[in-house]
């Protein structure tokens, strides 16, 4: 092997070292939980720094390393940086839950880092087998996290459901890889593109089926309708402290992988797959929005809203390579919003809680003004009100979709986003305009949650008001 570049897998190495260190220290010494948390934070920081170094290295000279297995390009570097930051915020949000695990805290932290390693590698894979492996590393870690509270029946159900449907999706994805290989004779993501550009397929059936199955497999992972059935049960059943990370991480990495194979490998066939993606997008938006309207549990509502948001992000994908920067913008800002929203849920319903009735939020503004204020801001952003990142993201993906000729999709999307406002506003109405129940507890947010919420609020407002800097970055974060 000559084509080794430790920088290309630097963030993954950092996280893996962190995992090993946490597990070894936890079995060898009786340590304070803060030490383990510190190690986790340090390895995330290292991953972040290495991601930035990747960016510096790759921005002029994007390449693939390890004989075409791993990409060292701005796309991968941005994914690593974004996921490392998401990891830090997720760690802050999940910290009360981690502490509540007692002795099992080491495993809990290790699983988060391992999931992140897999997710980062998903964005960096330049080869279908590499992509499949990283997808499995990430997914298996997330299955276990979903059911981490062994005594909790909801959690177990969530984990099992997630595992069964998730493995089914992985199998579908793998079948797609096989069919694509059958049609093109290569498993390299860039190699597929080269082959398709220089050859005309007489029979494109196998390739079409392959593309279709690849999209379906990843659509499962990002919970796009009609492959969304698992999402509400899983996000509700998992402990509130970790649901946000499961949603955020899977969205960023899933869309990164989808964007990379769609606009790199199968770019020559964009006219064939883009209409299918547009239908998926429209379905996700409509189904997610309509079902969210009927929810009385905030976690289920957020889950259905995440289905709708998957549709909005897919709206950017129909524009091909032009939409990629805005897929990044949308998925990253959405990730922070959903982390923040679940953070509030984890305070109100308890970090290990699985259900969180909307009625618990009545009069929250008087009991916990900071929590209510953050959640209100996040709801406005998820609903797409201007001056928040949620609006900016929508504006950009809509414009790309119109440029690509999908006006009908944008019309569906804007009308659905109005209907969506109804349930986002309902949370605000409950918090600010309803009297509180007499027995209501006073939720107290710990320091870690406060820091996370402040960060999320700043990001949401900053990129809503001044999106320029992030846009400048994501417009260069393109795959090779």
């Amino acid at each position, binding site marked *: 092997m000559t084509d080794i570049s430790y920088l290309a897998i630097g963030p993954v190495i950092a996280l893996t070292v962190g995992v090993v260190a946490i597990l070894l220290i936890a079995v060898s010494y009786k340590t304070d939980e803060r030490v383990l948390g510190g190690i986790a934070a340090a390895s995330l920081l290292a991953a972040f720094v290495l991601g930035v170094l990747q960016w510096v290295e790759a921005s002029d000279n994007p390449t693939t390393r390890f004989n075409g297995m791993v990409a060292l390009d701005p796309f991968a570097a941005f994914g690593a940086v974004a996921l490392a930051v998401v990891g830090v915020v997720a760690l802050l949000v999940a910290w009360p839950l981690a502490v509540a695990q007692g002795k099992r805290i080491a495993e809990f932290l290790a699983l988060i880092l391992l999931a992140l390693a897999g997710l980062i590698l998903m964005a960096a894979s330049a080869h279908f087998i590499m992509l499949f492996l990283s997808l499995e590393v990430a997914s298996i870690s997330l299955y276990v996290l979903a059911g981490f509270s062994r005594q909790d029946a909801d959690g177990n159900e969530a984990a099992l459901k997630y595992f069964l449907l998730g493995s089914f999706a992985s199998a579908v994805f793998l079948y797609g890889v096989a069919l694509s290989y059958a049609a093109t004779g290569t498993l390299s993501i860039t190699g597929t593109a080269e082959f398709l550009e220089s050859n005309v397929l007489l029979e494109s059936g196998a390739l079409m089926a392959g593309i279709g199955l690849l999209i379906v497999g990843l659509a499962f992972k990002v919970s796009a309708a009609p492959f969304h059935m698992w999402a509400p049960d899983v996000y509700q059943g998992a402990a509130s402290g970790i649901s946000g990370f499961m949603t955020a991480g899977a969205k960023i990495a899933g869309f990164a992988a989808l964007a990379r194979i769609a606009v790199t490998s199968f770019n020559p066939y964009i006219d064939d797959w883009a209409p299918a993606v547009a239908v998926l997008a429209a379905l996700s938006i409509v189904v997610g929005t309509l079902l969210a309207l009927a929810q009385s549990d905030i976690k289920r509502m957020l889950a259905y809203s995440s289905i709708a948001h998957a549709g909005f992000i897919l709206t950017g994908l129909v524009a091909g390579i032009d939409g990629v920067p805005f897929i990044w913008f949308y998925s990253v800002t959405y990730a922070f919003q959903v982390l923040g929203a679940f953070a509030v849920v984890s305070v109100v319903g308890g970090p290990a809680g699985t259900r969180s009735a909307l009625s618990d939020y009545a009069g929250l503004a008087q009991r916990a003004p900071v929590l209510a204020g953050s959640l209100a801001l996040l709801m406005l952003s998820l609903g797409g009100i201007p001056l928040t990142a949620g609006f900016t993201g929508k504006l950009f993906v809509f414009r790309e979709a119109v440029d690509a000729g999908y006006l009908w999709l944008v019309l569906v999307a804007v009308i659905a986003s109005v209907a969506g406002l109804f349930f986002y506003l309902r949370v605000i109405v409950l918090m600010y305009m309803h009297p509180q129940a007499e027995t209501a507890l006073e939720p107290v947010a710990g320091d870690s949650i406060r820091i996370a919420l402040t960060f999320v609020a700043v990001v949401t407002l900053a990129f809503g008001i001044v999106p320029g800097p992030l*846009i400048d970055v994501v417009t260069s974060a393109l795959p090779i």
Partner: protein
Amino acid sequence: MDFPILSSLVWLPVASAAIVVGLPRRRPELVIPVAFGLSLITLGLAGFLVVDFTAGDPGFQFVERTSISADLGIDYHLGVDGISLFMVALTAFLLPLSILASTSVEHRSKELMASLFLLEGALIGVFLALDLALFFVFFEVLLVPMYFIIGLWGGERRLEAALKFFLYTALGSAFLLAGIVFLSAQANDQLGNITFNYLDMLDVELSRTAQFWLFGAFGIAFAIKVPLFPFHTWLPDAHTEAPTAGSVILAGVLLKMGTYGFVRFNLNLFPEATVELAGFMAALAVVGILYGAAVAIVQPDLKRLVAYSSVSHLGFVVLGIFALTSQGLEGGVLQMVNHGLTTGALFLLVGMIYERRHTRRIADYGGLQKVMPWFAGFFLLTAFASIGLPGLNGFVGEFLILLGSYSRHPILAVLAAFGVVLAAVYLLWAYERVFTGEPDREENQNLRDIGLREVGILVPITALIIFLGVYPKPALERIEPAVERVLERIEQRTDFESPLRLDDIAEEIR
């Protein structure tokens, strides 16, 4: 660089909101005086803007432009012309009055003041924005403070009204957003660079079909805001349930975003569609005039009556705009200001007796003239202004509108004139039931007449009502050039010729 007066007008209210929120919680008595003082600074700036504005210049003045993001083609681009000038001034003028009218609010008054300031900043932003993305941001974001104003400080059915208001107008905005995005995509095709800039959009050549779709997308958003019949159903609830300050801003300024949007965007950007659809829009406007007035007559609730009268009066504005004559358009723009003043005053007056009696039902009153003579006097004067009595502001606007529309749509103009008669019916009949006769109900016999604070609210607004009725020239000479330019644009782009142009007549006489 010159003093950025337009930016100050947008951001000073936002800063004021922050200052008010930062006031110590232990000193609630400070809130109103501080808020009032801050709102006067903005008003002073707006007054300076009106005086410093160059009358006779049809273009945008005091322009500020910085790029927010070159990649996205979004600019921070502000400018004022004769069409937006008085909207800005009206917003800044009504805010101090709304603040004074909110002294009876004890529950979270800091937050109410902050919401009012944010609303003011966003409204001024809507009227000044010359970038479509920026315009949309202001247009949409002001729903949030308005939603809270209705939902937190409103009447009994406030939650329902707030939600209805928000969703209805957000639906309109959705179409607007789709339209803006589509227009920007067209501009991208033709000009070769990504832009949302209004001035660039003026150069975009749109096909007839595209113009119709875009006219529809923008038109629905603005028609809901106006509200034009049949999109008016959110209005009575929102106006009735909002607190006095909210109703004043809502009726006074917020509705004008719709009519302003028609003039600024539909007429300028989609001239061909405008000319073809003008008759249809004017007909809808006349339906609104008569329908609004007819429904207002039978309202048992004083605030609802004023709310429906807005539907009727805004119909006049839309009629004037789509007459596509210089008098009609000029009258329409002027009437936007006039309606803001008279309806604002009516809501303030209704708020004053509501504070005393806690009822809005007309049947609960009677004979107030005897116990509150000053109040009755102000009410009658405002009602006359609203009806359009010569010498008061409403007359000037309505006369110009009817004159301007008669030359294009004589039948519609005649029908619309009946709206004036109906206005006299609902307002004077309401006056009769509330103020005349004997105060035979016990609760009405000992009502206080208006105090110093209330006189302070009513005198400035009444003075303006009379001033604009007697001497509208300063306003008209600022509005006219901008309006003429809109018509010139339509004539250049289409084969439409506006009848009865004042300059043409003057030319012929010479």
